[in-house]
Each structure stands twice: as structure tokens, then as C-alpha cells.
């Protein structure tokens, strides 16, 4: 009989892990709290750096994860998690018991709630939106202000909820810079006559082809980059957004009115991940993410034997990295359950 692996989370990491576990000959139960799989990828329209439509990635993930060996449990969360000698006993919110030989935790991330940065007025000022809200607009092919008009002057605030002790996130979410550049270009494509400004602390363009995209945004699209974090936003009588920022390279404070302000929300350990951590007794780090046993050669290994991590539940990652991390988690499971393969 095949060994049974439970994967917690049906986003990119979970689907990839489930698909590769099935390929490796394991029976898989994939637990997903939502009614559909895919997680955050469903909310994004096009992906950096090559602007691939996110649906293509979802299609690929479905392709490898939808098969006889993977049992999909949507609308499902866990209420109990215990380990008995050589197997795990998991109880779902529907009262169902899952017996597992190994577990992959792929609970992903939550997008930072921009309202927590009170000074930007998200949820208060009409024309302050988040990067996720902008993606929805891209998907609908219509970028508008609250009054339905097309914005002509747009600002993007980097590092919202990242590198910020005030909100308890000391880490860099590392994808927001490239997301801002990608979104700035998409705004210019949709509204060619618009002016787009990126307010950044550092441009962290560390991934493959990121720097090139940044250069394209400057050279081809004329996106302006102003080094300085927006300190506060206010609303004029005409519902335009006034930002105050220091242009640190000019060494002077700068004030500007904008039609639309986009907050580049960072990534955080998900609430559900924290719940699983508590339920299972999994160790988390100072950054609240799951803490792998070793940063170099144990990035998938947890403090509980037989439980492994995949994807952004351990740190911010892009899709490429998430997929590699998931495959590595499957390799760890395979090694752990070696004796029990068909």
C-alpha cells in the first residue's frame, strides 16, 4: 500500500508539492480552506518578470495536481494535529480523520493589510488602493479612481508593511519592488498619457530579469523613481491624494498631488499558518514565519520529524522559488518515507 501524505494549503506550493508527491507514488490529501485552489495566484493578473498571464501557471499546477492519487479537500481546515509513533492523526473541521505518514505544510502568506499603516489612509481616502486592488483593475481592464475617472498621475509606495518595525515586520518582502515596476509599466500600457512615480527606499531587484524590467520602466515607459518612503498621505478637497516624501537624493522634502496612490503591500506569515503552528507545535521565528531547521540545507525541515515546509510559509518567495522549494520538500518526504514506497 502507498504511503499517505497530507499537504496543508492548496496554493502554488501545495499544488506543486501534491503533484510531485503523486508522481513519486504517494497518495496525497490536499487540504485547502477555500472552495477553490490556487491561493493568491487567483488574484493576480500578470506575473513578473515576463508578464505571463497567471492563469497559465494555475493551468500548469492543475495539470500536475489533478489526478487519482491526489484527494482534494476544499473548504477544509484542521482542528487537531497529533503524532502517534510513526504516523500523524489530523482532524478536519468536518470531523473527518486523516491518517498521514508525512505532512507538508504549505500554508503560504497573507498580504499585509495596508490599513495598518494608518498614515496612508487605506480604507479612508477614496483614492488610496493596494497593489492587490490594482491587479483586480488590470484583470477588469479598467483602471479608475473612486469617481470612475481615469487617473493621470499615480504614485506607488514601496515597502508597505515590510522593513517596518512599527508594524512588527523587520524583513524585506522582496517581491514588492518588482511588482511595483511591473504594475507601473502596466499602468503606462493602459493609460499611456499617465505619469507614474515609484517611491522606494532601495530598489531590490534581485531576481532574474528584474533589473532589466526596472531599466525598461525608466527608459521605455518614463516611470519616475523617487528615493524616499512616503511619510504620510492626505486628501485634498478634490479627493486627490497629497503625499509627503523626502527626495533623499535631492536632500529635500517633496510634496506632490496624485490621482491614485497604490500601496505595495508586503507578505506576512498567514493567520492560518500561525494556527497550524500552534496546533502542531511547529516552531516559528522572530519574523513569525515557520522556522526551518537550517537555512542552507534544511530549508524544508521542521522541528517535528515527518513534517516539512514548502513555499512562502517560511519566507517571502516568488513563484519560481516556491516551486523549487516545494519540489525540495517532496524530495525530503521521499527520503523520509523511503522504506514505504510501492
Amino acid at each position, binding site marked *: 500500500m502507498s504511503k499517505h501524505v497530507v499537504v496543508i494549503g492548496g496554493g502554488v506550493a501545495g499544488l506543486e508539492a501534491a503533484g510531485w508527491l503523486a508522481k513519486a507514488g504517494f497518495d496525497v490529501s490536499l487540504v485547502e480552506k477555500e472552495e477553490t485552489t490556487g491561493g493568491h495566484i487567483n488574484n493576480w493578473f500578470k506575473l513578473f518578470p515576463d508578464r505571463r498571464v497567471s492563469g497559465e501557471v494555475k493551468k500548469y499546477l492543475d495539470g500536475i495536481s489533478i489526478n487519482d492519487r491526489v484527494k482534494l479537500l476544499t473548504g477544509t481546515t484542521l482542528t487537531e494535529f497529533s503524532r502517534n509513533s510513526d504516523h500523524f492523526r489530523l482532524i478536519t473541521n468536518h470531523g473527518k480523520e486523516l491518517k498521514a505518514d508525512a505532512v507538508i505544510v504549505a500554508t503560504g502568506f497573507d498580504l499585509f493589510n495596508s*490599513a495598518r499603516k*494608518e*498614515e496612508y*489612509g487605506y480604507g*479612508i481616502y*477614496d483614492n488610496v488602493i493596494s497593489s492587490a486592488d490594482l491587479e483586480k483593475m488590470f484583470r477588469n481592464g479598467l483602471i479608475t479612481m473612486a469617481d470612475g475617472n481615469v487617473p493621470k498621475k499615480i504614485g506607488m509606495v514601496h515597502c508597505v508593511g515590510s522593513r517596518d518595525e512599527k508594524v512588527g515586520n523587520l524583513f524585506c518582502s522582496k517581491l514588492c519592488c518588482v511588482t511595483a515596476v511591473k504594475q507601473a509599466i502596466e499602468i503606462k500600457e493602459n493609460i499611456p498619457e499617465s505619469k507614474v512615480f515609484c517611491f522606494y527606499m532601495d530598489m531590490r531587484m534581485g531576481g532574474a530579469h528584474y533589473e532589466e524590467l526596472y531599466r525598461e520602466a525608466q527608459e521605455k515607459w518614463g516611470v519616475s523613481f523617487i528615493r524616499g518612503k512616503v511619510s504620510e498621505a*492626505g486628501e*485634498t478637497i478634490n*479627493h486627490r491624494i497629497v503625499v509627503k516624501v523626502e527626495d533623499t537624493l535631492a536632500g529635500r522634502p517633496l510634496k506632490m498631488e496624485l490621482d491614485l496612490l497604490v500601496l505595495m503591500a508586503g507578505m506576512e506569515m498567514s493567520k492560518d499558518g500561525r494556527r497550524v503552528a500552534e496546533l502542531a507545535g511547529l516552531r516559528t521565528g522572530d519574523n513569525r514565519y515557520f522556522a526551518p531547521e537550517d537555512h542552507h540545507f534544511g530549508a524544508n525541515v521542521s522541528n517535528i520529524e515527518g513534517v516539512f515546509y514548502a513555499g512562502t510559509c517560511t519566507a517571502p518567495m516568488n513563484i519560481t522559488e516556491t516551486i523549487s522549494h516545494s519540489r525540495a520538500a517532496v524530495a525530503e518526504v521521499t527520503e523520509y518515507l523511503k522504506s514505504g514506497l510501492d
Partner: protein
Amino acid sequence: MKQEGKKAIWSEYQKEIANDKYFYVRSCIRQNFFPGSEVAFLRIMREVLWKDVYEHPCHTTCSGIGYHGDVVPVDTAMTVVARQFALMTEAGYKNYVPSCITSFGLYTEIIEIWHHFPDVEERTRLQLKKATGREFEVPENLAHASDVIYKFRKEIAAKAKYKLVNKNTGEPLKVVDHIGCHYAKMFPSKGVGGAEYPYVLAGMVEEWGGEVIDYPERRHCCGFGFRQYLVQANRGFSVACSKEKFESMKPFKPDMIITNCPGCPMFLDRWQYVINEMEGKRYGKNNEGIPVFTYEEVAGLVLGFDPWDLGLQMHQTDCEPVLQKMGIEYDPDDKYRLDIRKSNQISPDLVNVRTR
């Protein structure tokens, strides 16, 4: 602007404000700037709300003005503050209510220091004991006087004779609420509504019929800054701060400004005169100034106190436009007659009246 967003933030910043038995401490400078305000507070508390408010004759400056003016070291400030607390303790009170925002900020800061560094508190206790022989308890409840008025804003509204409404048009008056920097910027959790969207004055304005204006420079300091203003050569920077605010609020056509700090009403009021003298600019409607009030003055007006008893004649920017809009009856001839006090006796239509 979405009010729900603000309400969500306000709900996160609630603070405990004692219900009665207050030990009240006056501000050093308010008695000179706006001498009617603290008297109005005491009258409202004692005669309208029927609360026990105690004042101690031995109370001194908290030394905050010197601390922020860079002439009083923190150890000295802590010992002076400890002495004030000792007066409260000796008088048998536990709820400390400063009139001054900077005092409130300093008290908050010192209590916080003592909380994190108990050895510093011990040192202060020793210093106070050696210097004065006194001992003190840390207040159980520390609230700024505007917090207390905020707490009873509904009770005041219930007894209101006038509303913050333009009597002729029925429209709510447009009110700029300006919060003293030391109220919540240092410790957002100690202010009603937090530091970004303070609710302490906005709550009063809403309750008394007015409409709060949210303008881009609402967080900007009035420019007082203690040392900055105290040196004459630096005053250009001080007045420029107020000017930034006026320029920013002007498009919203505010009828009035309400404040809760000793310095802010002084500077927002006086600088309007200076700016007009220097540049010929005014920021209110019909080329008038924008009247600036303390929250006690506004509460007093709402309750029907005589404007001249509230000390409105001490304002440099005339308050009459607001009085007229609210439909307040007043005698213009009494404005500068300080020998009479019209409402010496509280008006009989206010309940809970008791003679003291």
C-alpha cells in the same frame, strides 16, 4: 473619504478615562493666553456635570516647558512631576487631569520611563524624599482635560443651549480640529482615536452638531516648538508652520478651529494677525480670519456661557463671526469690560446646579 475606515481606527484607540474625583492641574501659560478656559473647565465639571475636581494651591509648573525648551534635565523634570503626584496622593486623589498637553505628554513619558526602568522611579522617590520629605503614588488614571470633556460630550450635548450649526442655513459649522503634538504623537495608544486620526476633539465637534474637516496638513505642528518660538530670530519658522496649515485648510472654508493645547490656539490665533500684517493674507471667509477656540471655550459656548466670561475678548482673531453663526446672544459693548461677569450665576436652565 470613508468614515467607516476612521471608525475602525477609532475603535482601536480607546482609553480609560476616570468618571469622577479628579486632581486637576493648571497649565503655566494657558492662564495668560486664554484665561477663561480653565475657569470654564472647572465650572463645567463642577456646576454642570457635578463632578469632584480638586485643585491644590501648591501645584507648580510640571517643568515640561523647560524640559522641551532644553533647560530642564529629565531627572529634574521627574522629581518635579513626582512632587505633583505627591500633592495628589496627599489630597487623597488618584485620577490626575492636566490642563496642558505638554504636561500630559511629559507625565505619560515619565510614567512610561518608570514602568520600564523601576530603578529610575526609585531614584526619583529618593530625590523627592530628600528634597521635600514627600512620598507619592503614580496616578491610577491619567487623562488630559480634553479627554474628560470628550468623555462627557454627550452629557454636554444634552444640556446644550446652542449647537455648532449655522443658525441661518441650518448647515453644520465646518470645524478644523487641531491636536497638540504631545497629546498622542509620542504615545498613540494614550490618545482617544490614536495619533493619525485623533478623535478627542472630533468627537466633541460631531456630538455638538459640527462637521470635522480633514485637510492634508492636519498633522502638522502649529510651529510653537518651545525653543523655536522663544528665540525671536526663529519665529519666522514658527509662523511658517501655521501658515502651511492655513494654506492647506483654506479650500475647505472652515468656520472655526478647535484646539486642545496651550500653544496651538495661541499661535494659530496670533499668527493670523502676523501673516496678515506681513503679507496681507487672511484665510477665512469674507476676508476674515478663522476664529480659533479652546475646547473649553467651545463647550462653554455650547452650554450658553457668556462669550466674554469665557475670555473670547482675549483672542486676536475675532470670534464674533462664529458667535453670530451659532446665534449666540451677546452684548458687543461688554467685550472689553472686565469689571462685570454676566454669568456669574449659572443659568437656571442647566440642571444639576448647586451653589458652591
